[in-house]
């Protein structure tokens, strides 16, 4: 079976490289011929063109992430109209059914943010910052919104660029200029989580709660060592693996589960961190 995956994250993004690994593993396991594609940057217009390109090749199944239902809708509907089975993953649970998508595998970004916020509030956080390395990326913005909601206290969004050094300096700046801030939520583990840990260490503060979306071996180590509170894992390997496996089964036997599959959220805390590190280093979690 030929299965094409079109995602909005880049192959060199640590998060998405895990999804891609899941896709490849599923391809190996099921014998399907899989391809993973993504636009150069977070670009909905280009992504819809990539979906069109995939539809033109008439694959036996199509997997897409849907961060913007309006922008990608027509292309997905075209795929559905062309009789291609489509599964959505990662983002888009809210619009998937309307577009004719068979099922969705993933977590709601907003809900995950809420869960993280509640947990951090529970752990004693009173004033937070949400460090967003890609402002305008709707999925990331939703995480911060959810966090604000779940945390229930004052939250400031700190926009940064894709540079760990800059993130570290900005987190330091935010903590120094407002000593009341005691909670840091990062939207990416290696890009924000790890520098945030370094920043807090450099400031010599041990009262700051640090949590981060997604996993990286370095951040998990910090969680294991007690330097960080927890990581929010959505097990994105499954988001790559399951849809491909479902579609391969569908192509061969016409089998398809009857409903959405929630892959997360799942909080990795100090107790569970150690066992995840190795898997993370191999690009599986």
């Amino acid at each position, binding site marked *: 079976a030929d299965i094409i995956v079109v995602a909005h994250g880049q*192959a060199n993004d640590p998060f998405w490289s895990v999804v*891609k690994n899941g896709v490849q593993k599923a391809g190996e396991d099921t014998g399907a011929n899989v*391809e*993973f*594609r*993504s636009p*150069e*940057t*977070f*670009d*909905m*217009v*280009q992504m*819809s*063109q*990539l979906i*069109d*390109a*995939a539809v*033109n*090749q*008439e694959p036996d199944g199509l997997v897409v992430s849907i961060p*913007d239902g*309006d*922008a990608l*809708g*027509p292309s997905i509907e075209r795929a559905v*109209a*062309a*009789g291609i089975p489509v599964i959505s993953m990662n983002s888009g649970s809210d619009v998937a059914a309307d577009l004719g998508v068979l099922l969705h595998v993933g977590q709601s970004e907003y809900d995950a943010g809420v869960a993280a916020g509640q947990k951090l509030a529970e752990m004693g956080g009173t004033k937070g910052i949400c460090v967003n390395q*890609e*402002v*305008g*990326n*709707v999925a990331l*913005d939703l995480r911060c*919104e959810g966090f604000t909601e779940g945390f229930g206290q004052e939250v400031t969004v700190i926009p940064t660029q894709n540079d760990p050094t800059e993130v570290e300096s900005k987190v330091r700046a935010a903590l120094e200029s407002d000593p009341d801030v005691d909670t840091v939520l990062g939207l990416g583990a290696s890009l924000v989580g790890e520098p945030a840990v370094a920043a807090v260490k450099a400031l010599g503060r041990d009262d700051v709660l640090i949590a981060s979306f997604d996993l990286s071996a370095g951040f998990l180590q910090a969680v294991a060592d007690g330097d960080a509170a927890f990581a929010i894992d959505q097990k994105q390997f499954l988001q790559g693996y399951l849809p491909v496996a479902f579609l391969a089964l569908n192509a061969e036997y016409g089998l398809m589960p009857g409903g959405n599959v929630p892959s997360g959220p799942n909080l990795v805390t100090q107790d569970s961190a150690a066992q995840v590190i190795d898997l993370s280093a191999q690009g599986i979690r």
Partner: protein
Amino acid sequence: MAAETEAHVDERIRAESVTTKLMKRPELGAIGGVILVTLFFLITADSAMFTLSGIMNFMTPAAQLGILGIAAAMLMIGGEFDLSIGSMVAFAGMVFGVFTVNMGLPLIVAIPLTMLFAALIGAVNGSIVLKTGLPSFIVTLAGLFILRGAALVGLKIFTGGSTQLRGVRDAVEGDWLAPIFSGEAFGGLFAWLADAGLIETFKNGTPKVPGIPVEILWFIALALVATYVLLRTPAGNWIFATGGDSNAATNSGVPVRRVKISLFMLTACAAALVAIITVIDAGSTDARRGFMKEFEAIITAVIGGCLLTGGYGSAIGAFFGAIIFGMVTIGLTYTDFDQDWFQIFLGGMLLLAVVFNNVIRKRVTGER
């Protein structure tokens, strides 16, 4: 009366073939790259790439990029850069979205207003460059940040906190101007062709390609108009002169200020046009639209033979440059190469295409 040299055929000039004459034109230099890239994908890519729908598929991003690229090329020929066009796509998209969704204006009002907004900002960019004498690179770089930030702030204000504004498609539905700025043109023709079995259809009988995406028509029209202006009008002569040496141009009576400001307005309006087309098509806009497009536009112009120093280049070159870029970025997804290798291929293909242009032209014209 001065003694005139008699006009006669010059013995110091060798015969020149038609091919040579053609290849000497910068307009045609970039065509070599298009041919090379096409050949490459004919061999390596899935055959779906060169079906009608495949061609429309890579021409659509090429057209969107090309509209920016042609405007950027004209500005570069005029000796300046505009790094703010990518952010302008996001900003103009936000403005247009607010006009249509929040204020409910019909397109006949919303589009000219959006264009006016963009042109104004372009004129401000140009005036600052001329007034301060700073390089346009740094001035429009500030524009890049400011407009991107303004798009974000604007979206948050008008959506009440989100960075994405939805519902444009519903808002413009049924507007008589919408077909000119969105969707596909010549739908009737394509339906007829499908009925006649001349083009591919889906199983349900509708044609796979419902028409030509309007951006492709805009793209071709802009390339033709820009080429005409550059080569056949006084304004074109002024643009080349301004970019070639703005001092000499001023001294020869070219209205350099007017030329530069008009060009900045042109690039801003091109960005607004792309914003309008993509916003209507997508039905939504967000704060990251047009991200990095300023660089891709410059890349397009340079692939098409524009000099960064100004005074040389062509619109048709940028046209082919956009097609090369579009074909390479979309085309690689039709091949079996692993996505990890995507950037390596992209870089390699771009370099190859440009080197090939160059080699061909030098071989044919005997330059150097």
